[in-house]
């Protein structure tokens, strides 16, 4: 009763503030957090990218002149930056299709009533849970020129070896990340497979479709929304690449062949003290990811409409 009475009295007020205005107080810390940690820095990055911004002693008041697109011009004409964008392109070309195919196939196999299901799920997810810094150590051990992988390959081992080979360094990083993240995407597909109707499989087998055919005609279209999500998330992960080239290939070597845009952004922005250049790289990267995400959505999600 009292609840109704209160809302009746505050009719005008509640139409402005809502029935429980205390909700505003509950979300205020979160909104402040988003403003301080996301919105303001995002705007600040754009500001820096159009000005001559440099580090100064705290409190020093200096001129930060507007330079228009000068930072962007510097970035776009820098071969190291261009190389890093090409590198991330190579990364995505390997990582994204491989992630989609492997996680879908493994999730499909895992979806059946099969022995040791929990064991498999746990083992696929473990790399995702472990710190990249920790796992990079063992990959270095496995893939260095004298490592176990080359010992097994014998005369087939590449020369120069994986991580110091300018043609293989970026693919090796891409394989590493694919392996590391796959567990998460397997789970995404597992969830999506629950929603594919069993009747469709029955109908397909009535029509005489074999296992492969029903996988292609029923499963693949059935999980298309999940595929869109997997492609998008894998792209965003790829754009954020830093730890792996930094540690696996000793800072993006050999000769920048595995440097990622975030790695270059760190080197130029913080190590070399040009945050304006670093911000311009960041803005270009965001724009690139957005365009790519839109293109992928059109391409992968085309049968949604």
């Amino acid at each position, binding site marked *: 009763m009292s609840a109704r009475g209160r809302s009746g009295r505050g009719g005008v007020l509640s139409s402005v503030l*809502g*029935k*429980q*205005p*205390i*909700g*505003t107080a509950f*979300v205020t*810390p*979160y*909104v402040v*957090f*988003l403003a301080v*940690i*996301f919105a303001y*820095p995002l705007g*600040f990055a754009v500001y820096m990218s159009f000005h001559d911004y440099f580090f100064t002693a*705290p409190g020093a008041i200096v001129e930060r002149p507007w330079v228009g697109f000068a930072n962007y011009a510097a970035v776009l004409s820098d071969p190291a930056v261009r190389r890093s964008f090409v590198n991330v392109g190579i990364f995505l070309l390997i990582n994204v299709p491989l992630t989609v195919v492997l996680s879908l*196939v493994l999730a499909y*196999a895992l979806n*059946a*009533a*099969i022995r*040791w299901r*929990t064991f*498999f799920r*746990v*083992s*696929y*997810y*473990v*790399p995702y*849970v472990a*710190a*990249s*810094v*920790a*796992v990079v*150590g*063992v990959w*270095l*051990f*496995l893939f260095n020129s004298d*490592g*176990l992988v080359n010992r097994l390959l014998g005369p087939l081992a590449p020369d120069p070896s994986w991580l110091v080979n300018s043609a293989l360094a970026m693919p090796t990083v891409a394989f590493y990340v694919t392996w590391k993240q*796959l*567990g*998460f995407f397997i*789970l995404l597909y*597992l*969830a999506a497979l629950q929603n594919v109707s069993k009747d469709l*499989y029955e109908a*397909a087998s009535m029509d005489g479709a074999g296992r492969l055919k029903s996988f292609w005609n029923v499963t693949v279209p059935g999980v298309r929304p999940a595929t869109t999500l997997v492609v998008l998330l894998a792209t965003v992960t790829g754009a*954020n690449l830093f*730890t792996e080239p930094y540690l696996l290939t*000793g800072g993006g070597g050999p000769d920048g062949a595995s440097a990622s845009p*975030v790695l270059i952004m760190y080197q130029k922005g*913080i190590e070399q003290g040009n945050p304006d250049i670093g*911000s311009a790289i960041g803005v270009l990267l*965001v724009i690139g990811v957005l365009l790519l995400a839109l293109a992928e959505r059109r391409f992968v999600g085309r049968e949604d409409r």
Partner: protein
Amino acid sequence: MKQSPSRKSPWRFLTLLVGAFVFLFPFYYMLIGSLQAEPDPSVKGAFPSPGNLTGKNYTEINAAIDLGRSLLNSGIFTGGVILGTLVFGVLTGYALARLQFRGRGAVFNLMLLVQVVPFQLLTIPLYVLIVRSYGLADSYLGMIAPFAINSTAVFVFRQYFLQLPQELFDAARIDGAGELNILWRVAIPLVKPALLTGVLLTFIGPWNEFLWPFLITKQQDLQPLAVSLSNYLTTVSARAANPFGAVLAGACVLAAPAIGMFIVFQRRFISSSLESGVKG
């Protein structure tokens, strides 16, 4: 169970088995490598030989980077993030699920939007602001601030609060209970399992995070384990007697808490990933 296509198929099991080997072998090798006195990259080295086993690598890495201190830093960093997410994330999740107030839709959309902003892209401006303007370099606060409330966890909390029956809240409100009281006495006790899920979900991020603490901690005694281990990997390891052994020992110490937590709570981990994936 009726599984229409392929009920008995050895290839499925074999595929999964090969996959599991590829996924688990590096971890097995990490452990073996951390216990070897002499690094043995040959195939035989993948099997432990009692003569070559030692705990020396662990004492070596401990002497180089002070494991206890690094683990404490990782713990404070992770703990701070979890605390912030629990306190403010639960308040936000509850308000978004159960309270009618102005701006609710906007906050909800903001929360979804933030999850697609790649954090690394904010690195430079956050570095300038937090290190240069606010002088929070080499401090726990500076380390924690960018992660203080995990938006994915907020989303998960909201989903759980949303599932509670409305009558419960109506009844409590009729009794004249305040919203904070309702949240504390009615809602939270009913979603305790969800809070654990939120803690687990939040735990892996800061525990494994590398780039941000790497940027803002220069003082070794404030660095989390991931940062001090990577510094060891890039600088000191070239001069050590058995560098890989020491690195792998450190790697085991860094990986063990997250993997241990995951194995103990694997059901919750997996269901929370499923949910956040499907609905997010």
